């Protein structure tokens, strides 16, 4: 074990393991830990060797060999008031009289979590003209739907929806609240979490239950997707989480399912509300499809950024029943618009099939398509990261390969059709 100049056994931080969460900085009773760059450093001389930093570090980045039991952060008895909170709630985002698909995906997951906890699935449904959505919610798996059907809740405004959802939480007291990480959902979740002063974890890719502690374990990517973190919210309720569309599986709809619908009163919030003046729908462009919805994406990378060959790639996309997307350099070159960009600063997609043409697979791009089921990479560089992770990789000049692939697919499709 490391020692300082006075010979005292002290703690030391392994810089490459430190994720810069600063939990140790706050925990140190003698305030001898500082941040150097994005990494924590213990001043060896005044360190008293108490090991509290070792206890609280989530990534085992602290060297401290004195025998001690590693405690989970904040392992104090939970306030009993928390037992009042029961049920797994899902915010049902409604659009044009239907529930958004992500809401049903989350209801499916909520069923699984509720089963483990031995509790019920609650649907939280603020909106206008959403009676039929409440019934949809029950067929997808909600036991109870708490609905606020009010004209004020027509267009989405954080003030109105925020107040409504906070009201639902305070009345129904769920232990967990899940929301789809749509633009609306992310916006709303933060407002609600702040008002309820509870914990919110965004863009979770995994949800599980620690049954001993009766806690929701939320897993999400961080550091631009380079590292996964599992997070929990111990002493605050509801434990809130947003989940991206297409991460959870869409459950089967069962119209015979029974459930309760509670209709609740609602008053508009005080003060003037913002006014929506206009809505401009997205211009339909090539393929006319939202890259988030397409089941197949043909992704144009820097190595295929050529207007001459773009029609051929579009043809491939269409043939496969999908649409065109691209990486950031292609947007920067002006070949395709920003709405087609996949990646950290673009869109996160999770198609069934991702065909990367000339895409090297930089970290910021991979982060935006990790949820893909099958990856096909067409690249001249066999060492490109995208090739390394692809399920199928074809090495060579895409300009020669793609036309042949198109031919081959057409031939096979013709054969299989009677």
């Amino acid at each position, binding site marked *: 074990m490391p020692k300082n100049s006075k010979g005292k056994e002290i703690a030391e931080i392994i810089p490459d393991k430190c994720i810069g969460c600063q939990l140790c900085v706050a925990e140190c009773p003698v305030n001898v830990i500082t941040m150097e760059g994005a990494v924590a450093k213990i001043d060896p001389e005044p360190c008293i060797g108490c090991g509290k930093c070792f206890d609280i570090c989530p990534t085992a980045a602290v060297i401290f060999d004195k025998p001690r039991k590693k405690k989970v952060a904040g392992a104090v008895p939970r306030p009993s008031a928390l037992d009042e909170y029961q049920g797994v709630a899902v915010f049902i985002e409604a659009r044009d009289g239907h529930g958004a698909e992500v809401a049903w995906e989350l209801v499916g997951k909520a069923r699984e979590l509720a089963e483990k906890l031995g509790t019920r699935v609650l649907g939280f449904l603020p909106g206008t003209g959403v009676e039929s959505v409440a019934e949809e919610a029950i067929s997808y798996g909600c036991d109870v739907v708490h609905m606020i059907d009010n004209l004020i809740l027509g267009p989405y405004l954080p003030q109105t929806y925020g107040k409504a959802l906070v009201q639902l939480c305070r009345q129904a007291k769920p232990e967990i609240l899940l929301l789809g990480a749509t633009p609306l959902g992310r916006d709303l979740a933060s407002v609600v979490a702040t008002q309820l002063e509870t914990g919110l974890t965004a863009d979770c890719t995994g949800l599980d239950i620690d049954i001993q502690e009766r806690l929701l374990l939320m897993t999400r990517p961080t550091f631009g997707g380079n590292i996964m973190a599992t997070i929990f919210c111990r002493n605050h309720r509801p434990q809130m989480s947003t989940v991206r569309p297409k991460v959870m599986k869409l459950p089967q709809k069962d119209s015979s399912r029974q459930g309760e619908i509670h209709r609740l009163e609602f008053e508009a919030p005080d003060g003037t509300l*913002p006014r929506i003046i206009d809505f401009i729908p997205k211009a339909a462009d090539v393929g006319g499809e939202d890259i988030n919805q397409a089941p197949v994406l043909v992704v144009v990378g820097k190595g295929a950024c050529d207007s001459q060959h773009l029609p051929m790639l579009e043809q491939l996309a269409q043939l496969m029943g999908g649409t065109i997307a691209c990486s950031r350099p292609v947007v920067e070159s002006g070949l395709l618009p920003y709405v087609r960009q996949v990646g950290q600063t673009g869109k996160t997609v999770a198609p069934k099939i991702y065909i990367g043409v000339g895409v090297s697979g930089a970290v910021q791009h991979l982060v935006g398509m990790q949820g893909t089921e099958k990856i096909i990479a067409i690249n001249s560089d*066999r060492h490109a990261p995208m090739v390394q992770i692809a399920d199928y990789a074809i090495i*060579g000049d895409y300009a020669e390969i793609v036309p042949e692939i198109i031919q*081959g697919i057409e031939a096979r499709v013709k054969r299989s059709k009677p």
Partner: protein
Amino acid sequence: MNIVCCIKQVPDTAQVKIDPDTNTLIRSGVESICNPYDLVAVEMAVRLAERYSGKVTVISMGPPQTESALRECLALGADKAILLSDRAFAGADTLATSYTLAQAISRIATDETVDLVVCGKQAIDGDTAQTGPGTATRLGYHQFTYVSEVIGVDLEKNTITVRREVENGSEIIEGTLPALLTVELEAASPGYASLPELVRSLIQEVPTWGADDIKGSPESLGLKGSPTWVKEIFAPPARTGGLLFDSAENKDQAIADFLDVFFEKEHEILDELWSVDKG
């Protein structure tokens, strides 16, 4: 018109890699940068301040070296920068962070009215996009997220009109000030500082405010004020490579092989794709 921008210094996550042998982050040599979304926010704020004759103050919560990110923003034309740094702030999740920022903005507002707060949509390390809305909620300001353009400000009527990028299009929305905006990357292009601006950013003083300066109550700050904690971290499940078809030797054969294998192995997905009746 007084504008406050909240910025964050982040590691350049594009450069961060995982050591495949030890499953740890390799961060040596990775530079800290000002969050790109925040640079856009500051650029937009500076342009608004020019248009409506106002001032821009940039604030950031972080350890002492965050000062260099604040100076980057001064170089873009911000008038003043304040560093929020205190051990008590350490270990903060988004709830505690929005508390700290809101307290600081309230303190600024005691000296002069704050009309607008502009933040980047999200930080490229955490990617939560929660801090902006959280801060707006605490301050009781109207919030407008995913802003791609500020269409206009009416200082008489005290309103702002913005364009927001939502699910299927853009929304033009008008609300009263004070308001908080979170901005998309396309909202502005950070400019290239003039030499006098750059020199000023290097020598101007950046004061530091601690917990007392912002009247922060200990239970709401830092680790104590954070409901969420990290249980563990691990490397994402590595997708290992699959089958490789090299077209160098025999292109036709390679492609034919690929198609054979692909159609056979993935027939489930393909059936699903093509069974959808396109009629």
